[in-house]
């Protein structure tokens, strides 16, 4: 190995070690008694889809993968979860008023329809979170149906 290459590799290793000390501030999971699926009588196949494809960013039941503990990927994971929960948190669904629930369900329907969710960067690694067109259609129909129910409440 040339001297220059050694220096570059050492420097990179040094940077990698140093950034481990920059905290990612991963959002914690707040335990709650509220069960979104039971409360809204969500069918089992839809529940499985949401748990697999949405819950790692849109709930208080996030399962952190190993790379969530290592910088710089930990920063990305932390950021995505913060943003995800800000837009929609299934674990805190009941804190939303009727109007906010309708807004959220419309958003779910649109984002899933247009392939914006789950985020493509997420499904690269979490291949099981990928949704087929058939699954997408089911999820969209479910969200639209629940919106009707919420509206009639």
């Amino acid at each position, binding site marked *: 190995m040339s001297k220059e290459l050694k220096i570059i590799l050492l420097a990179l290793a040094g940077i990698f070690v140093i950034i481990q000390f920059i905290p990612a501030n991963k959002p914690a999971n707040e335990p709650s008694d509220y069960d979104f699926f039971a409360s809204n009588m969500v069918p089992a196949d839809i529940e499985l889809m949401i748990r697999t494809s949405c819950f790692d960013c849109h709930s208080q039941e996030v399962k952190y993968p190993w790379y969530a503990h290592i910088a710089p990927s930990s920063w990305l994971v932390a950021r995505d979860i913060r943003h995800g929960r800000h837009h929609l948190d299934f674990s805190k669904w009941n804190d939303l008023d*009727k*109007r906010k629930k*309708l*807004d959220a*369900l*419309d*958003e779910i*329907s*649109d984002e899933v*329809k*247009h392939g*914006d969710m789950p985020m493509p960067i997420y499904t690269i690694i979490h291949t099981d979170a990928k949704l087929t067109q058939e699954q997408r259609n089911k999820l969209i129909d479910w969200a*639209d149906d629940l*919106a*009707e129910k*919420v*509206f009639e409440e």
Partner: protein
Amino acid sequence: MSKKLTILMIVPVALMALVISGFSYQNQDNKFTANPSDNLVIPDNVNEILDNKCFGCHNVDAKSDKAKEKLLLDQLTTLSKAKIVAKLDDIHEVVEKGEMPPEKFLEKFPDKALTDEEATILKNWAKSASDELMGE
């Protein structure tokens, strides 16, 4: 008549025809009139603002996929009441925050900016129509 003169006369006539047909094409195709529906009635003054300032991007044939994904005005009134509420809330929010029309777009088409009066009309309509649907 000489050949040259004929060509000289045909060219401006053809150009005029092109320009006129171009204009009428735009007028016919880019006009927003909401589909009549029981779920949502869009008053004329609101329709005019939506037509002038929003419809160019928020219609099924528009170029911008992002704009189309968020809102299709030509389909708005035919959505379910539950969805119309959500869309009206979105309209109210983006106008309130000054996010629409987008800044980048306004750099090119400054005349598409909403005047204060237009913004107020849009917001009041979105809010009252949404409230009415919600029975509030």
